[in-house]
C-alpha cells in the first residue's frame, strides 16, 4: 500500500496561511524540503498533519483547539487540509481524497471533513484496511521529530511495540481474541427462556457480577492510562520549556553536559548492579563464614584421615593377604575380626562423596573471600555518590536559572516535581490493576469488589463461564473455544517474537549501513522501547546521531517489511546528526522512502543538502512570515512570488532552489 501527501493547506491558524505542493517518487521528486525559520509554525503544521492522520482530533479538549488559533487574526475560524493519494496495491487505482479540519474558535470546536473526487462525503474516503494504520502509535513511526528521537528509546515515553503489532496485523488478532472471549461469555451467560436449577442460577448471577466488575476495572484502567499519557506529554512539554529557558540564560551547554553525565552514570550504575548480581549468584562470594566452615570440615576430614579405606578394599584384600598392616602375620582369627568390622568401613560411594567434598573444599580456598564483591560494592557506592553530586550540580544550575529568569522557572520546576509524583502514583495504580494472583485467592468468588486486577477478573469470568457451560450442556462449545483461544494466543506470542527478532536484524543492518564501522551501536531488543547497546551490553541511549539514525532505521525497517509505502515526515531531520551521518542519510533517503517531507531550518542545510542533491531531485520549499523583519527575504523573491505573497495574509513561499540555498533565515523571525 502507498500513501503520499500531495498538498498541505492552512488558513486562519497559528501556522502561516499557505498552500504547499508536495511530490513523491512517482512524480520524480521523492524529497520535499520545507525550510522555515524557527517560530514560523513548523511544529503546528506537523502536529496538524499528525492529528489528521492519527484521527486524534476526536479526543481534543477545547483548550487544545484554542491552541491553534492565530492570535494576530480577528477571524474566528480556521482550516487545515491534507490532500492525499492512496493506492492499496500496485494493481489498484490511485485514490485522490482530502481530509480537512474545520476550526470554530468561538465554540472551541473542530470538525473533521472528508472529500473524495465528487466532493464532500461523510464517510472515510480510503480503503477500510488502512484504518488500523491511522492511529497515533503508528503515525508516530513515520511522522516524528528528528531532534526528539530519543523519546522512542526511553522506557517511560517509548512505545516501539505498538507499531510493530499494528503494521503486521497482530493488533487485529488481539482484537479478534477479545471478540472471541466476549462472544463466548455472552453466549454462556445469556438467559433466554429456559428455566434453570438453583446451582445454575446462582452461577449465572455470580458470573454477571464478575463481568460487571471486569467492565468497571477496564474503564478505570483506561482512564488512568489516558491521564498518565496526558501527564507524560505535559512533563515532556515542561522539560522542553525549561530547556528553552536554559538556552535563553546561556546555561544550556552546561545543563546538556550534566544531563549526558547523569545518563552515563545511570547506565554505569545499572551495569554495576548486573555485575554484582552475577557475582552474588555464588554464595561463597558474600559469606566469609561459609568459607571458614568449609575449612573446618576439610581439616576434620584430614584429621580423621578420611576417606581411608573402603569395604570393597577389605573384601579384595582379606582372601589374598598374608601380612597385616602392622607387619605381623594375618592369622585366621585376625581375618575374622576384620570381617566382623567390615560393615563399619565406608562404601565406595561414601568414599567418592568424601573425595568430592575434599576437592571442592580445596577449590573454595582458591577464591579470595568476598574481596571481589567488596570492590564492586565500593565502585557502586562511588557511582551513587557521583549521581548525588551530579544531581546537586544540576539543582544548583536550576537555582541559578531561577535567579536569572524568575518565577517562571520556579513554577516549571515545582510543576515538574508534582508531575513526577503524580506519575509515580498512577504507575502504582496501574501496577495493581495489571497485577496477578492465583484465582484460588478469590474463592468462593463471592466478592468481586475485592478483586482489583483486570487480568484476575478476566480469568475468574472465564473460569465461571467454563463452569456454567459445563452445567448448561455447552461443554463441546466451551472446549472448542478453549482450543481456539490457545491457538490464537500461541500464534500471537510466537509470531511477535519472530517479528521482533527479524526487525532487530534488519534495523541493525540499516544502522550499520548508515553509521559504518565508526560507531558500533546496535539495537538489542524491540519492546516498550528500542533498546540500544554494544556487544550485548545495554546502554540507556546512544549519541544524538546514533539515536536519530536508530529511529530512522527502525521506522524504515517496519515500513519496508510491512510493504507500507508511507511518507516519512520529519521535523528537524538532521539537527541531531553530525556531518558524516548527515551525508549518509542524504545519500540513502530515496532508498528508504518514496516520499520524504523534511521540515528544517537553514542551519540543517550544511552537508545534508549537498549529499541529497547528489542522489535525489528535490522539491525546495521556503516559507517565511510576511513581516517587516523579513524584508531582505521578501526583496529576493520574484515578482510572481511577491504577488502570491501579497495574496496571502501572513506568509511568503518560494519553490526556487537558489532562494532555498541562499536564504539566511536565522533561527527565529519573531
Amino acid at each position, binding site marked *: 500500500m502507498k500513501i503520499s501527501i500531495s498538498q498541505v493547506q492552512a488558513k486562519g491558524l497559528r501556522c502561516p496561511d499557505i498552500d504547499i505542493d508536495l511530490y513523491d517518487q512517482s512524480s520524480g521528486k521523492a524529497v520535499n524540503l520545507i525550510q522555515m525559520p524557527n517560530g514560523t509554525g513548523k511544529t503546528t503544521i506537523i502536529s496538524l498533519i499528525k492529528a489528521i492522520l492519527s484521527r486524534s482530533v476526536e479526543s481534543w479538549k477545547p483548550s487544545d483547539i484554542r491552541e491553534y488559533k492565530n492570535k494576530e487574526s480577528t477571524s474566528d475560524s480556521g482550516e487545515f487540509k491534507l490532500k492525499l493519494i492512496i493506492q492499496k496495491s500496485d494493481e489498484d487505482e490511485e485514490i485522490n481524497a482530502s481530509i480537512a479540519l474545520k476550526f470554530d474558535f468561538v465554540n472551541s470546536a473542530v470538525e473533521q471533513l472528508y472529500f473524495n473526487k465528487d466532493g464532500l462525503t461523510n464517510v472515510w474516503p480510503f480503503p477500510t484496511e488502512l484504518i488500523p494504520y491511522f492511529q497515533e502509535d503508528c503515525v508516530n513511526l513515520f511522522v516524528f521529530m528528528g531532534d526528539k528521537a530519543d523519546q522512542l528509546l526511553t522506557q517511560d515515553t517509548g512505545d516501539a511495540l505498538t507499531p510493530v503489532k499494528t503494521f503486521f496485523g497482530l493488533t*487485529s488478532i488481539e482484537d479478534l481474541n477479545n*471478540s472471541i472471549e466476549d*462472544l463466548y461469555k455472552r453466549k454462556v451467560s445469556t438467559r433466554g427462556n429456559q428455566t434453570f436449577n438453583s446451582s445454575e442460577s446462582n452461577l449465572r448471577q455470580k458470573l454477571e457480577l464478575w463481568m460487571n466488575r471486569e467492565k468497571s476495572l477496564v474503564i478505570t484502567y483506561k482512564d488512568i492510562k489516558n491521564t498518565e499519557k496526558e501527564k507524560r506529554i505535559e512533563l515532556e512539554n515542561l522539560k522542553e520549556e525549561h530547556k528553552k529557558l536554559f538556552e535563553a540564560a546561556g546555561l544550556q551547554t552546561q545543563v546538556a553536559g550534566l544531563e549526558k553525565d547523569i545518563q552515563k552514570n545511570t547506565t554505569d550504575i545499572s551495569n554495576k548492579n548486573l555485575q554484582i548480581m552475577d557475582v552474588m549468584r555464588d554464595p561463597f562470594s558474600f559469606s566469609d563464614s561459609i568459607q571458614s566452615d568449609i575449612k573446618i570440615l576439610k581439616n576434620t576430614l584430614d584429621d580423621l584421615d578420611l576417606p581411608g579405606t573402603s569395604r570393597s578394599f577389605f573384601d579384595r584384600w582379606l582372601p589374598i593377604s598374608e601380612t597385616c598392616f602392622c607387619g605381623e602375620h594375618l592369622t585366621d582369627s585376625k581375618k575374622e575380626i576384620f570381617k566382623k568390622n567390615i560393615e563399619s568401613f565406608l562404601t565406595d560411594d561414601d568414599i567418592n562423596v568424601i573425595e568430592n567434598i575434599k576437592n571442592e573444599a580445596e577449590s573454595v580456598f582458591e577464591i579470595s573471600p568476598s574481596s571481589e564483591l567488596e570492590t564492586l560494592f565500593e565502585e557502586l557506592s562511588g557511582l551513587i555518590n557521583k549521581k548525588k553530586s551530579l544531581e546537586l550540580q544540576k539543582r544548583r544550575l536550576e537555582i541559578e536559572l531561577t535567579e536569572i529568569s524568575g518565577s517562571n522557572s520556579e513554577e516549571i520546576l515545582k510543576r515538574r516535581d508534582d508531575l513526577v509524583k503524580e506519575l509515580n502514583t498512577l504507575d502504582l495504580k496501574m501496577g495493581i490493576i495489571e497485577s496477578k494472583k492465583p484465582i484460588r485467592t478469590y474463592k468462593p468468588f463471592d466478592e468481586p469488589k475485592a478483586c482489583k486486577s483486570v487480568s484476575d477478573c478476566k480469568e475468574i469470568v472465564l473460569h465461571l463461564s467454563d463452569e456454567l457451560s459445563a452445567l448448561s450442556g455447552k461443554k463441546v462449545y466451551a472446549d472448542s473455544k478453549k482450543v*481456539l483461544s490457545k491457538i490464537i494466543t500461541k500464534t500471537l506470542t510466537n509470531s511477535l517474537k519472530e517479528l521482533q527478532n527479524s526487525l532487530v536484524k534488519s534495523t541493525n543492518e540499516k544502522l550499520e549501513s548508515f553509521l559504518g564501522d565508526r560507531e558500533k551501536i546496535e539495537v538489542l531488543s524491540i519492546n516498550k522501547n528500542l533498546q540500544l547497546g554494544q556487544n550485548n551490553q545495554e546502554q540507556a541511549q546512544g549519541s544524538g546521531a546514533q539515536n536519530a539514525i536508530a529511529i530512522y532505521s527502525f521506522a524504515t525497517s517496519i515500513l519496508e517489511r510491512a510493504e507500507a509505502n508511507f511518507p516519512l515526515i520529519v521535523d528537524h531531520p538532521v539537527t541531531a546528526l553530525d556531518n558524516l551521518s548527515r551525508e549518509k542519510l542524504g545519500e540513502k533517503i530515496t532508498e528508504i522512502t518514496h516520499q520524504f517531507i523534511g521540515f528544517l531550518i537553514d542551519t540543517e542545510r550544511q552537508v545534508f543538502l549537498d549529499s541529497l542533491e547528489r542522489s535525489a531531485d528535490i522539491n525546495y520549499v521556503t516559507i517565511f512570515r510576511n513581516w517587516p523583519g523579513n524584508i531582505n527575504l521578501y526583496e529576493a523573491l520574484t515578482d510572481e512570488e511577491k504577488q502570491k505573497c501579497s495574496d496571502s495574509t501572513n506568509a511568503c513561499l518560494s519553490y526556487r532552489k537558489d532562494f532555498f540555498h541562499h536564504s539566511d533565515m536565522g533561527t527565529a523571525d519573531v
Partner: protein
Amino acid sequence: MDFEIKNALRKACDEENLDDASFNAIKSLIDKKISNKLDDSQIESLLDNIYELIAQSKNFK
C-alpha cells in the same frame, strides 16, 4: 498474512492436532480480521463453523 504469523498459526494448530480444514478456517478468519473485513455478526458465524471443525477434529462430540 505475514509468514511469521502463518508459521506460528500452523505450528499452534499442529500442536493441538487439528486437521487442515480447521487450520484453513482459522487462517481465513484471521486474514479477514487483519484486512478489516469483518463485523461482529460475521465473526460469530465464522466462529460457529470453526468450533464445529475443531470439535470434529478433536473428537469432542
